[in-house]
C-alpha cells in the first residue's frame, strides 16, 4: 500500500529552490534512505514532509499525500495534527532537541495525550513502556529526569521514544546518529532496526554506509534534485550516476593496499546558483556539451533503478 506519494515537490526560500521538483514514493513498512551532502536539500525535504519548513519557505507540489491525507489541502491546524500521530521525526542533535526545563516524563505524557484521549495514569504507563522499549534502563527513575541529566545516547533514545509513542505509520529520521560516538551510533542503529519494523522510515543522512544499514532503497540528492534512486545492494555494487560513483570511491575503506582515494574534484554548487544544464557537470569527469546545456531527467534505466544522467554507467 502506498503510504507516501509526492510529485514534483519543490521548496523555495526567497525564490531559490532548495528542493527542486522531486518525486517520492514509499510503501507501508518500507525504508528509504535520502543521501546527500550539506546543501543538497535533503533536510529541507524532510521538513517539508513533516510540515516544519521555516516561515520564509514556500512548498509546492503536484501531489503530496501521506497515509491518505492530501497534505496540501489541509489547513495548518490539521497539518500540524498529523505530526506525532501519522508521522513523526527524529532530529539530529539530541542535546538541543529536548526542552531543558521539562522532565522526560512530562514530555512523553504531553505527546501521548495530544493524540490519545486517556487519563494521566494510563499515559504514564504508556510513557514508561515507551522508555523501556527503546532500551532505557530504569525507566521509572528516568521518567522524572531532566534532559541535562542524560547522556547523548540516552537523549537520542528518548527522542526515538517520543517519535514512536503514538505508533505513527511513518518515521522521518534526520541524521539520527551523526552527533553520536561510534559505539553509541551502533546501538542506535540497532535500536532503529529493531523498533521501526512496523513503521515506514525515511532516513536522511550524508553517510551511504548508515543508509545501507537500515534502508532497502536509496535516493541520492545533489543540488536539490534526486540524481539516482535504486535498491541499496544495486546502488552500492553498480552505481549509475557519476556522483554516486564518486561518493563511493572518495570514502576510505578497509583495504590493506590503501589505494589513493579518488576524490570528486571541485566543490558542490551553492544552492542559490543555477546552471542551464546538469548541476554536477562542473565536477563530472564524463561531462559533455549536452550536460552543460540540458538538465537530465530522472529516468528508469532498469527495473527499480532510476538515474538523472545523460551518460549513466551501464548497470546490467
Amino acid at each position, binding site marked *: 500500500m502506498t503510504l507516501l506519494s509526492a510529485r514534483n515537490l519543490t521548496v523555495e526560500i526567497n525564490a531559490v529552490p532548495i528542493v527542486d521538483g522531486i518525486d517520492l514514493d514509499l510503501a507501508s513498512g518500507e525504508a528509504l534512505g535520502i543521501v546527500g551532502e550539506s546543501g543538497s536539500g535533503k533536510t529541507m525535504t524532510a521538513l517539508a514532509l513533516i510540515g516544519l519548513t521555516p516561515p520564509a519557505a514556500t512548498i509546492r507540489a503536484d501531489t503530496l499525500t501521506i497515509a491518505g491525507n492530501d497534505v496540501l489541502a489541509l489547513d495548518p491546524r490539521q497539518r500540524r495534527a498529523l505530526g506525532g500521530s501519522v508521522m513523526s521525526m527524529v*532530529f539530529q542533535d539530541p542535546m538541543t532537541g529536548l526542552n531543558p526545563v521539562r522532565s522526560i516524563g512530562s514530555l512523553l505524557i*504531553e505527546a501521548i495525550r495530544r493524540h490519545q484521549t486517556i487519563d494521566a495514569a494510563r499515559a504514564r504507563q504508556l510513557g514508561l513502556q515507551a522508555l523501556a522499549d527503546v532500551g532505557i534502563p530504569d525507566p521509572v527513575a528516568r521518567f522524572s529526569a531532566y534532559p541535562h541529566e542524560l547522556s547523548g545516547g540516552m537523549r537520542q533514545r528518548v527522542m526515538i521514544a517520543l517519535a514512536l509513542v503514538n505508533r505513527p505509520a511513518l518515521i522521518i529520521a534526520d541524521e539520527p546518529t551523526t552527533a553520536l560516538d561510534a559505539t553509541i551510533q551502533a546501538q542506535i542503529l540497532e535500536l532503529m532496526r529493531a523498533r521501526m519494523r512496523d513503521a515506514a522510515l525515511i532516513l536522511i543522512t550524508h553517510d551511504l554506509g548508515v543508509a545501507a544499514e537500515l534502508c532497502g532503497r536509496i535516493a541520492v540528492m545533489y543540488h536539490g534534485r534526486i540524481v539516482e534512486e535504486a535498491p541499496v545492494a544495486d546502488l552500492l555494487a553498480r552505481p549509475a550516476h557519476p556522483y554516486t560513483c564518486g561518493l563511493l570511491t572518495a570514502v576510505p575503506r578497509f583495504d590493506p593496499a590503501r589505494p589513493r582515494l579518488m576524490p570528486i574534484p571541485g566543490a558542490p554548487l551553492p544552492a542559490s546558483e543555477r546552471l542551464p544544464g546538469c548541476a554536477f557537470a562542473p565536477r563530472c569527469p564524463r561531462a559533455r556539451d549536452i550536460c552543460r546545456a540540458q538538465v537530465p531527467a530522472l529516468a528508469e534505466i532498469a527495473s527499480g533503478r532510476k538515474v538523472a544522467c545523460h551518460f549513466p554507467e551501464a548497470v546490467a
Partner: protein
Amino acid sequence: MGQWFVAPILAPLSRRLVELLVLLFCVTTLLFFLVRLAGDPAVIMAGEGASQQDVAAIRQFYGFDQPLILQYVHYLARLARLDFGQSISNGLPALRMVIERLPATLLLAIAAIAMTAAIAVPLGAWLGARAERPARRGAATLVFIAQGIPGYVVGLLLIQLFAVELGWLPSIGDETRVSWILPTLTLAAFLVPKLTRVVATSVSESMNEDYVRTAAALGLSDAAILWRHVLPNAVLAATALLGTQFAYLFSGALTTEVIFAWPGLGRLLVNSVQVLDFPVVQASVFVVGALVFAVNALTDIALRLIDPRLRRSAA
C-alpha cells in the same frame, strides 16, 4: 532529600555574602574618607553661620580631633555594632530613621515589580511569539523607544495627564489606596521596556530552538508550544533580569519618591544628602546595600528552585 538537594541551592549565598561584606566595607570606607577629604567635617556638619564653640563641640563629640587612622578604627568598630550615630537634623538614631522608612519603599518596589511582570511578560510573549510579523515589529519599535524615556520623566508625564489635566488621581503619596497608582506606575516604567524586550527576545529565540521543532513535530499546537515549552524558559530569563535589576530599580525609587513626596528611604537619602546629614546617609547606604544583597540572594535561590539545570547540576 538531604545535603545534595539543599547544598547547591544555598551554595551561591556564600559568594553573595562575601560580596555584601566587600560592598559594605568599600562603601563605608569611601564615605569615611570622602567626608574627611571634602573639608573639615565639623564645619560642614555645624552648618553655615555656626559659632566657633559649636564647631569645636562637634569636633570633640565626633572625635574629629583624633588622628585619622584612629577615627577610622573607631568608625569601623561602631559600624560593626550597627551604631551609625544620631541624625544631625533631629537627633534621632540614624538607623532607626532609616528602618522606619524602609516599609514604604519596599512595598512600593514590590508593587512595581508585580506590575512590571504583569505588563511585560504577556506583552513580551506576544511580541516574541511571531516576531517577524509587521504589527509586532512596529510594537517592538515602540517598546524600544519607550526604553529611552527615563522613568522619572514618565512620572512627571503621568502627573501632568492624570493629576493635572484629568484630575483623576492624586499626585502626592498619602494614606489612600489611589495614591499608590501613579508612583507604582512610575517605578514600573523604569523596568517594563527592559523586561518586555528580554521576554520577547527569549520567546523568539526559544521559538527557533530544536526542542520547539521537536514539539511541533509531535503535533502540539502553537498555543501548547508557547505555554508549555517557550514561556517556562522566558520566565526564567525574566526572573534573572528582575534579580539583577533590583539595584537599578532602587535608583528609580530615589527619583520616584522625590516626585511623589513618597515617605520612603529614597527621599530620606536625598533629603539627608542635601543637608549633609552624614549619619543618616551612612545608615541609608548601609541598608540599601543589605537590601540589594537580600534581593539578589533570594533571586539566586528562586532561580535554583525553578531551573532544573541549576537545581541538580551538582548531583
